[in-house]
């Protein structure tokens, strides 16, 4: 959905739904997902409709994902870390995850 401009470089690796992808130090999780062509980051807990980042400024809560095993984190506010595990969130969150 998005592409990186020439003067930026991928520098680290994160995992999205089990697949290793490149990200740039300074990316948020949501930015890394957009740069890697992930077309949705969650499905809604109400009807299961797919959603993707919408505002990228922390107000819409569309980019809720599981990060390192913890659900419902706002992907646009969390900076990536090398080795981070990101999972798209399916419907309602599971208590304890």
């Amino acid at each position, binding site marked *: 959905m998005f592409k990186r*401009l020439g003067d930026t470089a991928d520098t680290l690796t994160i995992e999205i739904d089990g697949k290793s992808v490149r990200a740039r130090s300074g990316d*948020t999780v949501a930015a890394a997902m957009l740069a890697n062509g992930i077309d949705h980051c969650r499905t809604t807990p109400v009807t299961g409709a797919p959603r993707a*980042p919408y505002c990228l400024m922390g107000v819409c*809560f569309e980019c809720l994902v599981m990060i390192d095993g913890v659900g419902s984190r706002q992907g646009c506010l969390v900076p990536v870390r090398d080795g981070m595990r990101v999972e798209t969130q399916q419907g309602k969150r599971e208590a304890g995850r």
Partner: protein
Amino acid sequence: MTEASDLASAYDLVVIGGGPAGLAAAALAARAGVSTVLFDENPGVGGQIYRGITSTPLKKRAVLGEDYWAGAELAAEAKASGALIVTGATVWSLDPTRQVGVSIAGKARMIEARRVIIATGSLERPFPIPGWTLPGVMTAGAAQTALKAHGLVPNGRVLLAGCGPLLWLLAAQMLRAGARIEAILDTTLRANWLRAVPHLPDFLLSPYWSKGLALLREVRAKVPVIPIERLSARGEGKLQQVDYVSRGKDSRRQADVLLLHQGVVPNVNLANAAGVAHRWNERQICFEPVLDVDFGSSVPGIAIAGDGAGIAGGTAAAERGRIAAIAAVRALKPSASVPDPQSVRQKLQREELGRGFLDTLYRPADAFRLPEDETIACRCEEVTAKQIRDMAAIGCEGPNQMKAFLRCGMGPCQGRLCGLTVTELIAASRHTRPADVGYYRLRPPVKPITLAELASLPISEAERKAVER
């Protein structure tokens, strides 16, 4: 990195939000010797206008323009001022006694503040069209953040739609970055040009005039601009097509990304939860806090600066932050030397000159604020405009009762993306004014915190006994 446990239990001044208003306020107060902490929930300061100002990967300054880079000075001043600047810090509670609830890396703290300046800025006005929840549909502000903070530009067939200065600025920045825009679908009502004419003399004196005109020229030279009256996004699981009506004629375009924008409105959530009185601004079609000349709110000791005080733009935000900070310093430390607020007020006045014209010209059309029946109004709870109209028709008079009936505004965004739509839909259905309908009554936490964080807060014996009995 500052952790929750590193914070003092009390500060003279807590500034919430690290955009231009917050940075300017924190810098001025800290330099005057007032103990100041600034919290911002993003990974870096700058707010949205100067997003990524200390870390952007963009090397070519021309892409974002000199107005953006002016933010670097504000950030540097704040850093040098002695204010404690804590990023990644989410303020989720503020009460009338100025107890501030803040979370840093999953740990919550309560901090006492003698004065508070809320500088949480604005957010983009809801743009509820059919299909606006589809992946591939985003706000223009989101695309701008992706560009500023991450050096990302939208890929594939990209359309921009809506109205307002930010739409044109984004288009210019994207073009300078080498991105391709298929078209701009312009929702500006033609009749608004006439209505805006009385405001033109002021606008001609404001800094927006020459900049705005140059932007329009720059973008129009490269991108077709299509006036539209209706808009919807379609696709299976993601955006594939955009349908629109231009001058009465139905058209469609294949699209991968649709960027929506129809102005910004104050982000009122924290102030509302703190009990600050708000009022309806009919020219800007939004609620804004009731403030005095120093941006002091109805709650003693809580001021609101920047676009959260009513939309006036980024440079005005910094001046507003300074005025609020001068008032705070004078109250906290009368002996400290501060700049003359009159000179700041004069600068602010100049910055605010252009608003009448912009607000009138870019007043979003009813069709894009009062969605049609099956269009989702509340994205979190997936409540449609029809459901809201139906409940209004059987007697539901306001957003708080609507929330109880339909759950609109009950999801994690807490009404930020539906509040104005719900208020306006009720007003239209019941033939009354948004000012009379009112807004959601909000309570902390205004941003989600975990149950464990909530459980970790200090508990008095009386508070425990209120539950264990």
